[in-house]
């Protein structure tokens, strides 16, 4: 769930070209067949394993999805694409998680993983081809059976038909024969005009199981002889377990074992409640490591000091020389009539997935381990678990479960490693479930950040140049993705400067600089990553410049977007839809902000009611240009959810540190927006048909600046730090 991978494909860690074109060929086509029928075919042709489609004898088609289903609906979207090329009947299609095997690796990142809102955007063309290949093979099989020309056959609702003779064969009757054929290299793709499913609001295939309790999430895994464990991790960042007296836990009825890990202690019991009581009974002794004095005030001071000390290094845009950028911005600021500088700050944030971290592990007879994990990073998970157990990666089998929210947290695999270690130590299959308090206190947090933005303005307030400098901890020292990225050419500074690196606005001479300032707090990828803080900084600053120029914030942005048609498009769309500029009732105010990431451009207007310090979120207008869109209804829901995620953070979101430990525990001090607090929505998905962009993260980034900008209109005060409750506001709901 990060925008990390938006750069063009490049030579990757294994040293071979990983472009879309190169990898499309590796998405080998085949069919998983029912065990009985599969025998001879499977034995003679290894390619059959590389399957995206399982066609039952009854014609029911199961699409194997290589994208973890975190709620974004991508597994259904993958099915939509295949169903269109194959002319399937949507009521006879299902999805299942594909196994963690090379043919299912994401072509852009060459991993079995999903992040960067890339689940669909990087695979769309390859999936179409896979569908078209399968269709061609089914047609060929039918044509051979009928001894007619394949060209005289058509496909309709899961069957090959020969209209001239009125004959028809369901795919279920043809799958075995078709699977033996060689996939055509360049099958004809269905022209866009004939799409039935792509671009339509098809009902999601995963939802029926989510309304009757039958959906199996990580916490729901059931195995023969399964025990439940829970864990207490060193409260201080970098802490270790020194000692623990196991006695009090073992005295709890139902507790079977206490397991020591380097930085944690776990209790294994017959059920969660016994394990919980066991862990509560323990008094582990911790080594507090290097961070016992770490606190939020110190972190903030360190970030400000990094900027004061000039630690921020210019990060060159791909085509530019940093020295030249520095010279140009210096010249622009030196010759400007005035300099305008503002400093902004954002706190650490937690993912707070509603399903707490968990994982299930069972050791196998051959010294391997089998896991059931709610993860979005299967490839890295396998390596990390193998390393922790000291076994080869081939001996680690990961089954992907449904996931109760990810937002970047399930890129990490700490819970999987723990489950494996505990299962090994306990000698029984174990389902590890973290308490909410552990989940809150042991996250991979969105980094706290401070930014100083400087503009040079002419006497007539025209913008001559701009410098953006940020200080924040990095993500790669902590995140699993750091291991992936280490050998790539992608510099680690990228995440700290997302959005700021390449502004949509024409601001004259420009440079962005970043001081990676690691402070000991574990950081990671949080829905929309660096956009989440940098859009707040940049879009607040642009709003301030509009005020300096005496201009309306929409008009002002419009002027700076002459060269950015996509951003101009979404800006104009929300301005028009919201009736921007019209007189508003007393106490009602609006703010606007843009964002851009993962190849999509977004604009948001929020309308709020303000009575003293009491704020009500009334309505959000949001326009997104994500290019070609597989399921516009699903995109709208993703945007609504993303905006609510972003607004929640802007209003109340913060993780604070004292004595080296996170201060927040359960939802009483990590408040989430509720139904009563949610605004009304009008989301527009612009039909521009351009290159496909992401949608999972795109609702988040514009929310905070739009809200802060609206509060400026309401109060005349700028709120340059988050969350807004820290400025004394209360939010309805």
């Amino acid at each position, binding site marked *: 769930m990060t925008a990390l991978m938006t750069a063009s494909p490049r030579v990757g860690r294994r040293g071979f070209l990983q472009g879309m074109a190169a990898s499309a060929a590796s998405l080998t086509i085949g069919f998983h067949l029912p065990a009985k029928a599969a025998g001879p075919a499977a034995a003679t042709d290894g390619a059959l394993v590389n399957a995206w489609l399982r066609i039952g004898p009854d014609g029911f088609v199961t699409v194997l999805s290589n994208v973890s*289903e*975190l*709620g974004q*609906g991508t597994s259904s979207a993958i099915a939509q694409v295949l169903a269109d090329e194959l002319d399937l009947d949507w009521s006879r299609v299902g999805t299942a998680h594909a196994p963690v095997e090379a043919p299912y690796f994401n072509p852009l990142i060459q991993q079995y993983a999903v992040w960067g809102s890339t689940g669909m955007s990087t695979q769309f063309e390859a999936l179409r081809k896979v569908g078209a290949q399968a269709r061609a093979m089914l047609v060929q099989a039918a044509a051979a059976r009928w001894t007619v020309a394949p060209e005289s056959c058509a496909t309709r609702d899961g069957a090959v038909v020969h209209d001239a003779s009125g004959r028809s064969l369901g795919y279920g009757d043809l799958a075995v024969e078709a699977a033996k054929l060689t996939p055509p290299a360049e099958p004809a793709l269905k022209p866009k005009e004939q799409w039935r499913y792509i671009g339509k*609001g098809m*009902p*999601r295939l*995963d*939802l*029926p*199981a*989510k*309304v*009757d*309790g*039958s*959906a*199996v*999430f990580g*916490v729901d895994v*059931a195995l023969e002889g399964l025990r439940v464990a829970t864990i207490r991790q060193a409260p201080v960042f970098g802490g270790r377990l020194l000692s623990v007296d196991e006695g009090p836990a073992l005295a709890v*009825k139902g507790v079977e074992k206490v397991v020591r890990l380097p930085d944690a202690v776990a209790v294994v019991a*017959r*059920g*969660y*409640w016994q394990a919980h009581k066991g862990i509560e009974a323990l008094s582990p002794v911790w080594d507090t490591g290097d961070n016992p004095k770490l606190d939020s005030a110190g972190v903030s001071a360190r970030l400000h000091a990094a900027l004061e000390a000039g630690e921020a290094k210019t990060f060159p845009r791909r085509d530019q020389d940093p020295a030249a950028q520095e010279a140009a911005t210096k010249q622009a600021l030196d010759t400007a009539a005035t300099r305008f500088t503002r400093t902004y700050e954002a706190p650490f944030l937690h993912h707070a*997935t*509603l*399903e*707490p971290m968990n994982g299930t592990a069972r050791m196998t007879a051959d010294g391997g381990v089998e896991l059931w994990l709610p993860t979005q990073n299967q490839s890295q998970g396998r390596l990390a678990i193998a390393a922790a157990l000291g076994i080869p990666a081939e001996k680690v089998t990961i089954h992907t479960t*449904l*996931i*109760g*929210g*990810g*937002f970047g947290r399930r890129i990490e695999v700490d819970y999987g490693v723990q489950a494996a270690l505990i299962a090994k130590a306990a000698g029984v299959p174990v389902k590890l*479930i973290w*308490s*909410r308090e552990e989940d809150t206190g042991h996250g991979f947090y969105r980094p706290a950040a401070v930014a100083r933005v400087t503009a040079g303005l002419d006497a007539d307030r025209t913008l001559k140049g701009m410098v953006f400098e940020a200080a924040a901890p990095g993500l790669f020292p902590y995140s699993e993705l750091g291991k992936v990225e280490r050998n790539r050419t992608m510099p680690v500074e990228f995440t700290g400067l997302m959005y700021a690196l390449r502004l949509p606005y024409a601001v004259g001479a420009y440079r962005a600089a970043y001081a990676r300032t690691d402070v000991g707090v574990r950081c990671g990828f949080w829905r929309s990553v660096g956009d989440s803080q940098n859009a707040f900084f940049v879009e607040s600053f642009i709003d301030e410049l509009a005020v300096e120029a005496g201009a309306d914030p929409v008009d002002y942005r419009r002027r700076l977007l002459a060269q950015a048609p996509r951003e101009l498009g979404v800006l104009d769309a929300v301005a028009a839809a919201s009736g921007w500029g019209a007189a508003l009732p007393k106490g009602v105010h609006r703010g606007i902000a843009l964002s851009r990431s993962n190849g999509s451009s977004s604009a948001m207007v929020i309308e709020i009611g303000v009575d003293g310090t009491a704020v009500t979120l009334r309505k959000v207008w949001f326009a997104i240009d994500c290019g070609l869109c597989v399921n516009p*209804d*699903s995109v709208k*829901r993703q945007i*609504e*959810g*993303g*905006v*609510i*995620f972003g607004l929640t953070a802007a209003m109340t979101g913060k993780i604070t540190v004292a004595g080296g430990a996170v201060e927040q525990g*359960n*939802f*009483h001090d990590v408040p*989430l*927006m*509720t*139904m*009563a607090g*949610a605004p*009304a*929505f009008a989301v527009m998905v612009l039909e521009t048909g351009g290159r496909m962009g992401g949608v999972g993260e795109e609702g988040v980034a514009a929310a905070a600046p739009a809200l802060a900008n609206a509060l400026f209109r309401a109060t005349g005060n700028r709120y340059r730090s988050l969350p807004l409750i820290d400025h004394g506001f209360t939010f309805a*709901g």
Partner: protein
Amino acid sequence: MAYTLTVNGRRRTVDVDGDTPLLWVLRDELGLTGTKFGCGAGLCGACTVHLDGTATRSCTVPVEAAAGTAVTTIEALSPDRSHPVQVAWLAEQVPQCGYCQSGMIMAAAALLKETPKPTEAEIDAAITNLCRCGTYPRVKQAILRAAAGA
């Protein structure tokens, strides 16, 4: 100790400590995993079930207090997803990750039983379950749809 309660129409006896929350009796003892664990502290609503017809956060009810009551979980709201709330949920395509949805649906079903035609304000007041995916606008639409009998 043994406690007897009626779960989804069947009498069930479980042998657990009396302080075991109903949530964990349902999930670990009876294998009814549709009811979810989110916070264990009555704060999120993921564990909502009907206790003698009333929406209740099962993580806050020790089994000794639930003994003798009738519990309905998401698995038994209807045999075939035909409860008006489930029908409305699919029509509005409410769930995202789905983790909060069992609790949301149980809370909504209880609300509609009590207040068949709730206003938006009544929905806001009654449905305080947390959804990290932000499905609130769709949840509200679905409840209004179910109330309208559509």
